[in-house]
């Protein structure tokens, strides 16, 4: 099967392609979400150490994974846009940022509500938590920089620089915080996970991860379509668009 990738690299054809793909990913996301929640709440057994509180894992872990992964993807597309001056990839990066920030917030929020009953505190200055918090700052920095710049091309490029600098910094921050923390307190609080995860727990979690994936893709495509409309409003194909959609 040969697909003409260059054809889809043009915003106009991508706009239509994304329009076709969004329902597909939305349906998948809903199915996976329902399945994941069912497994999470009705199949997975009670954890013998944490009781029922561990069920937060089904949103916490997918959110945390997505938050980090989306940042890398965002930086990747922004970097491609900067290097090859391709409009679509920069628009993609811009579309990813809010979803990434949302997942980061969810990961922090659920982490706090999980930490309170387990560790007795909402927050610890642990390497993971601190770097996740900084990840949120990086997302917010990226979005506010882009929002503050009026010229879209400049916004794309400036955002790309800060996203790339941030991606270099994340591992550095992570290791520095880890080291800093171990210097302070020998035995820091650790996530008390049962030695072996029950299969149902693992399956439930993975299904939820997939659901988060599908949700992200659907939403990012939706937002990318918005951005395309916004930026290309002066072009002829957008002007012709109305006849077909109305």
């Amino acid at each position, binding site marked *: 099967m040969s697909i003409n990738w260059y054809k889809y690299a043009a915003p106009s054809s991508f706009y239509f392609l994304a329009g076709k793909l969004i329902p597909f990913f939305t349906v998948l996301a809903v199915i996976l979400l329902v399945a994941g929640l069912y497994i999470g709440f009705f199949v997975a057994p009670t954890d013998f150490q944490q009781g029922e509180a561990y069920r937060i894992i089904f949103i916490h872990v997918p959110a945390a994974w997505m938050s980090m992964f989306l940042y890398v993807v965002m930086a990747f597309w922004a970097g491609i846009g900067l290097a090859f001056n391709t409009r679509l990839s920069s628009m993609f990066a811009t579309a990813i940022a809010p979803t990434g920030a949302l997942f980061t917030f969810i990961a922090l929020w659920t982490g706090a509500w999980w930490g309170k009953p387990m560790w007795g505190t909402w927050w610890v200055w642990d390497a993971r938590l601190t770097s996740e918090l*900084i990840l949120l700052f*990086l997302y917010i920095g990226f979005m*506010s920089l882009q929002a*503050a710049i009026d010229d879209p091309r400049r916004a794309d490029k*400036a955002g790309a*620089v800060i996203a790339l600098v941030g991606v270099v910094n994340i591992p550095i921050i992570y290791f520095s915080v880890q080291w800093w923390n171990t210097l302070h307190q020998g035995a820091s609080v650790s996530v008390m996970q049962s030695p072996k995860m029950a299969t149902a727990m693992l399956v439930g979690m993975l299904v939820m991860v997939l659901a988060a994936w599908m949700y992200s893709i659907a939403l990012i495509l939706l937002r990318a379509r918005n951005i395309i409309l916004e930026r290309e409003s002066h072009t002829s194909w957008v002007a012709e668009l109305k006849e077909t959609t109305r």
Partner: protein
Amino acid sequence: MLAMRRQADVLITLFFFIIVVSLFPLGVGPEMNILRAIAPGVLWVAALLASMLSLGRLFSIDYMDGTLEQLLISPSPLFLLVLGKMVSHWLVSGLPLVLMAPILGIQYDLSMEALSVLTLSLLIGTPILSLIGAIGAALTLGVRGGGVLVSLLVLPLYIPILIFGAGAVEASAAGLGYDAHFSLLGAFLLVSLVFAPWAAAASLRISME
């Protein structure tokens, strides 16, 4: 050549640093034990903020009067000119803090060794602040709300330097070795020395379009 700056700028940054550092004992209370414990962090955070305070003016004056355009079309390589800017920023806003820090450290009852470690860590660390900060300053040129935006962009990136800078002082105060902190700070300095001028030059070109 590029370091022509008003003396007032140096004094403002320096006084900001002194005032912030002096506010803490007033807020926390004159308990010497507590003060000694928080001293490295306080001095480092104050240095960080003071260095950031002057970032806004790093390129904006040149941007307003058109010198920046001349900089971009200068036949000398742009990253060297940007590096010159960074060095001058450090000479104006970093070096005075390094020189002032030991005196302020005495207010916090730090030992002689801790004082020297503090000064050395600031000596290695503050150039990194100028180097990374210049990228943020270049990106936010002519952008509304630029001043706040710079802090939002730059402060997260400052965190590793803060941790290791303050960590070195704490380690020495606790009688632990601090060589590792210094070698890491030195590594950061080298890496940012190589990449930051280049990234800031690219950012300037983007901002001037």
